[in-house]
């Protein structure tokens, strides 16, 4: 992995934080800005979840990742701690791969 991407990416994330401290808070008061700023992370995170679960390289692939993600969903429903959610997903996927 390239160091340039890591450093440029980090610098950009920092600038976004810093710029925010200089923008007057009233610009954020509009309900649409508020809603959009709440929904953007939702959209991107759901996108990451779906892509990383079914992307098979330019095609959809239904494989051992799906049962793992279902296990994660069940663990989240049961209000399991973060690490349990991640481990449940990984163990389920690993077991399905072992069995098939």
């Amino acid at each position, binding site marked *: *992995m390239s160091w340039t991407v890591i450093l440029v990416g980090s610098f950009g994330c920092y600038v976004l934080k810093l710029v925010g401290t200089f923008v007057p*808070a009233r610009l954020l008061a509009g309900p*649409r800005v508020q*809603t959009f700023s709440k929904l953007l992370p939702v*959209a991107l995170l759901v996108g990451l979840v779906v892509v990383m679960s079914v992307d098979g390289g330019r095609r959809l692939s239904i494989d051992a*990742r799906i049962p793992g993600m279902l296990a994660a969903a069940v663990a989240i429903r049961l209000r399991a701690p973060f690490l349990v959610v991640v481990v449940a997903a990984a163990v389920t996927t690993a077991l399905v791969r072992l069995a098939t």
Partner: protein
Amino acid sequence: MTPERRKIMGDALGVALAVAAYGVAFGATARTSGATVAQACSLSLLMFTGASQSALISVLGTGGTVAAALSVTWLLGARNGLYAMRLSALLPRSLGRRVGAAHFVIDETMAMAVVRETPELGRFAFWSTALMLFSFWNISTLVGALAGGLIDDPAKFGLDVAFPAAFLALVAPQLQGRPARRTGVVAALIAVVAIPLAPKGVPILLCAMAALVGAPPIRRSDAKPSQ
């Protein structure tokens, strides 16, 4: 120390411990996705915003382009700028100290600071959460990255679902109310349609449009400040 401050310290410790669990998972998965220990730790030190860090590693680790990886990283990081706007009254006035404080503006510090009754308590909550979380996040990343190095074949251990499971855990509490659910469904549909059609990394970017679909329609009254 006043009881209010002691309570804030306790809450901050709880938040930092929860974040440490994510840090271990991040460190290990970053390592198995092709980052070195130094790179995983640098991301936690310098970028210091979990979802962006994970997205950068995920997109690059699954063969996405640098442009796609940076775009997703920055789009996810943009919300910290909005938090900084909300926090600006609590942050130091002097430029030098503000430049330092800005690094610590993330989901958890904003959430802990904005609910306090006085600016002093808000400031105290911001800094106690920032310092505890920063320490735990970086130590746990190092631990995870070292552990991740012991794994030769990540897929055998199901580690390719570690990041998506982590993202699901992050987004699940936010899927409350119709706009958020609608956004989630539209984002999922965009991803499924775009995966066979668009190059790696691009489908996630297209999902950002779902935030526009989920937002309520523009009404005349939105243009004027309503009381």
